[in-house]
């Protein structure tokens, strides 16, 4: 059986950042889609299924934490990794309370991100299997 590729949704207003990151993840064998803001991210989640979402906390319009709340309303099981530009862990902690899987600080270390994605997807599948 062919291992199904992990589908990732990247939500960030920095287009340069998000497209480059998507390309790098695709090079590592993931399927990536991008969204430029919270609203389009939410609409993508409501129309398609993803294995994981990576969400920037600092965005114009609907901010990261509110986007996270809406995502959780649509798909409670979808693991979300938060990205923050702040040194403060306050928003990250708040996100964890709402139901985010983890949070990482920008700029990212790609290997750390991959590790987080793997453990997030693993925890999701172990939850779903039984």
């Amino acid at each position: 059986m062919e291992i199904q590729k992990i589908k990732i949704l990247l939500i960030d207003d920095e287009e340069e950042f998000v497209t480059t990151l998507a390309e790098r993840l695709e090079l590592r064998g993931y399927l990536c889609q991008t969204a430029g803001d919270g609203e389009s991210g939410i609409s993508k989640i409501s129309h398609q299924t993803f294995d994981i979402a990576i969400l920037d906390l600092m965005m114009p319009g609907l901010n990261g934490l509110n986007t996270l709340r809406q995502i959780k309303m649509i798909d409670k099981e979808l693991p979300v990794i938060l990205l923050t530009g702040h040194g403060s862990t306050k928003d990250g902690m708040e996100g964890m309370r709402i139901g985010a899987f983890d949070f990482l600080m920008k700029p990212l270390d790609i290997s750390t991100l991959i590790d987080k994605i793997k453990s997030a997807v693993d925890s999701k599948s172990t939850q779903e299997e039984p």
Partner: protein
Amino acid sequence: MFKKLINFIFLLDERPINRYKSLNRNIVIIMLLITIIPLTCMVIINNFQFKTHLRDQIMDPLYSMAEKSRHTFELFMDQQLSIIRFISNTYSLANLGNELTIQKILTSLKKEHYGFVDIGLIDPKGDLVSYAGPYSLLGKNYSQQTAFQETRVKGQYISNVFLGHRKYPHIVIAVEIVKNDGQSWVLRATVDTSFFDKLISGMGLERNSDVFLVNSKGIFQTNSLYYGDTLEKCPLELPGKSFKSQGIETKDNKNQDIIIVSAGFAIADYILVIIQPQSVALKSWHALKTKMGIIFFISLAIILFTIIKMTGILIKRIKTSDEHRENVLTELQHAQKLSSIGRLAAGIAHEINNPLAIINEKAGLMMDLIDLSKDFDQKSKFHELTLSITTSVDRCRKITHRLLGFSKRIDFKIEPIQINTIIHEVIEFLEKDIFYRRLEINLNLSDTLKPIFSDHGQIQQVLLNLLTNAFAAVQDGLGRVEIKTTNHENKGISIKITDNGCGIPKKIIENIFDPFFTTKKEKGTGLGLSISYGIITKLGGEIFVDSKLGEGSIFTIILPEKPNEMEIKNGNPEN
């Protein structure tokens, strides 16, 4: 108007340097005025009231005594007149003219009544026709004498005192006898005035008082104790003759203050005079005045002392609270300044982080692509270059994260912290300085140091302040700073920072934790140590300094295992 006055008194509008001095002075003056004016008024009014009351009390008995004495004198004189009148009515002129009879009358008069010296009958022409007495006056003509004339006019007469042949003071009493043929004869008697003295001594006057009789011309009719003898002129100015008793206050010839009370006789030309020195009369008043004066001045001294002392304390309190308020204000302003600097730093770090993330991803992608592609010219060189970019980005990331971490120091966040870790972080921050200045850092950190509950960012700030100060105190190449952490016996942990720098002079060591106190002139704000002090105090800890000039300083911080939560809440302006 009233508001203006209040403003003026309490100097609410202005803020001169010696404001507290002026305020002190104004309050003292006003308090003194509002306490002393009523007190003084009361004392003065009391004084007058009492004096008036006392004068009445003294004068009234004097008046009544004068009236009573006058009455006694008049009664006595009237009695003598009655006796003579009785004789004139009882005996016929023929009998009175008989020498034997008149002699008999005098003898029985002397026996029954005190004071009679002689008795004689004067015919209408004024010749003494019959006489009984010690002198040979028979045949003497009295027609020109006042006594004879007055008797003929008024029917009776009492003379003033005169000295008789034996130089004893006497008075003459005379009555008119009108015969059937219309001719008027006069019966006259001489009376010794020693009974006057008896009457006066019977009045029972106070010591230093004087009582005497004068006639309307001011000639003494009796001896005075102090002012002269009988028939001398009285040196005092007496109140005029009045049948009602009257009193005046005056000075006598010895310049002594006296009270004169006088009462005129209706029956004859006599005035009874009572003289009492004021010093005697108003003795009790003077005593009271002295006592009142003493009480007044003692109260004044107490009021003065209390007001000055109380105002001093009050002003001191106001000053302290003003200073305290100003300090709090300064701290608050500083905290706000730090907070805005923190926000600015956070904003900058955040803004830089985003492009940094893009660079990071782009370089990462480049690296990925290089790694995936087949060998090409200078592949390893490209790999090296992109790796260099990512490591530089990593360095930048460290800086921005640290900046963000420091910017958070305004918010108190109590969490379990490891002091040793924070010390390493701060040293890392100062690494460049240590390296360039060739300073020696000795870390003597306890392996068994207890973790404590405190604020990571705030402790970081304090340590940074203290280390910056220590570095400023030491010389390049020679400077040595030691940081030692230990578990404190009963109160959490202690951090000791020792340097071998210039030390702090004894003179200024008391001020080093004061805001804006600096020895660095333009380079320092004078806030570092005061902020550190504020932070450590708010975290429930203590900070103190020990220093020897030329040998170096030791700053010791003691932090509790857990700060008092109330202190944190109160002390944090941001929350």
